[in-house]
């Protein structure tokens, strides 16, 4: 029973992570990440779209790492 509950929790968390990844991908195409013709404010000497884009890419990789940990099928086909 506890195993089932754990799997359900994982499945829910995994679905939330999928939603977050889609939301983040959609946000990339808004002026929040890529305002036309604007390159200020910079961060670490990088122009605006570059550092926000870098942040989005890093967040997507972090979400992937979390998705792996929360994946309901984790450990299914170990050999």
């Amino acid at each position, binding site marked *: 029973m506890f195993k089932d509950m754990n799997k359900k929790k994982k499945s829910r968390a995994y679905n939330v992570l999928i939603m977050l990844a889609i939301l983040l991908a959609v946000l990339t195409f808004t002026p929040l990440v890529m305002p036309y013709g604007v390159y200020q404010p910079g961060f670490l000497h990088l122009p605006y779209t570059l550092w926000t884009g870098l942040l989005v890419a890093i967040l*997507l990789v972090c979400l992937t790492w979390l998705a792996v940990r929360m994946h309901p*099928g984790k450990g299914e086909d170990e050999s």
Partner: protein
Amino acid sequence: MTMWILILGGLFVLALVTASVKSYKRNRTLDEYMLAGFNIGPIIGVLTFAAALFSAFIFMGMPDMFRTQGVGAWIFLAVSDGAMVFGIIWFGYHIRNKVKVAGFKGVAGFVSGLYGSKWPGYLFFLTAFLFLVPYAAIQIRGISIFFSATFEGLLPEWAWALIIVGIMLIYAEIGGFKAIVYSDAIQGTVLLVVIWIIGITCIRAFGNVESLFAEVERIKPELLSVPGPNGLFTAQFLIASMLAIVLIPVTQPQLTTRIVVMRNFRSLSRMAVSLGAFAILIILSTVFIGMYGAVKYTDASTATFLSRALLFDQKDMVGALAMVGLFAACLSTTNAQIFALGTELRSLLKGTDKRVLLFTRIGLFIFAIIALVFSTLMSDELALLARTSFTGTSMMAPVVLFAVLSEKAPPMSILFVSGTGLIVLLLSLFHVIPAEFSGIRLDFLLYIYLAAGSLLVLAVRYFQTKQKVA
């Protein structure tokens, strides 16, 4: 530099020969030759996936894209790759579960088996052929232009192309998929090291990152924001690019195969996360090389910029390492694509292992020759041509996804959706129909069409099942 090229090139060839010999087994099965026995671990997995995906396109195409189109290239590739690695976890889990039941020889044969018809396999193979051959040709073209410009007068471009294809064929025919995977691993490591050494040199030429971008701001400030000086990076272009890139593991057979042959889901997961980190690291360095070129070689041709920035502005040993790295990069991507076509062909063939292997090897040879001929006809825009290849194969996404996700045999009507998408895209590439309608890009419209068509097929199936139950 010549001495360094000979030393490092010799070491690289030695590594290739070792990989081929280690992979060669006299009585190996067809699966061992074509699919490395489904036993690839996470470290080799990430290097072979990265090498098959990036290579010459990242080494030459991306710095030039940053130089001429600006920082939007980061969204075009790095952010899209971030989304793609997330997709690998989702898609990888489902396809591996299906493979356990249905088996796997290649994507074309796999979908044919699941649909219970040869047509989905033929359609997938045709699309892979139409879009992988030009993609392989881009790599050959890129490297032959580069070598020809670097060693002016030594050999013509076609001779460089012939050398690359010759080496590729020899070690693929001897070592099979395992040799390709090992050589990818060597190439992936060389690529990461070389590109960062060059990236750091480019930053140092200006003192630091701040001065580099300050100089770009002074010379061409449009490069620092979207849509860039030529207006390429619009939201539409970038959304369509992200979709094409996210679908790469689904529809580019050389990469789908690399997902399937991973040892287990754990290895696949580790590979996907590492690939994301690898992509960020490698693309970040190309930003600095591109910005360096924007200041130093603002109006130079692609070949001049690349030969100067990657070779002649570097120390002798770094230039030689770049040369070997580029050669290796081109070799591994081309090989992955040509071998993938061989794998797809094999999955559609029937007969004894010996007969299938013979036809596959002949097929590999023919595909390589076609790519060689094509390479003399391509243009210089590596990154944009690679994107066309991704877009083309992505038209098959509904066919593959329905096969992987359906519990019963998927409906054949989805073939119509993908097939018409493919025909419209081809008509636009041959300029029979425009690439834009009322200001909306055709590839963007095609993705809407594929999504709507898939939903319609799903709805029809749902109501048909409901009627049967009633």
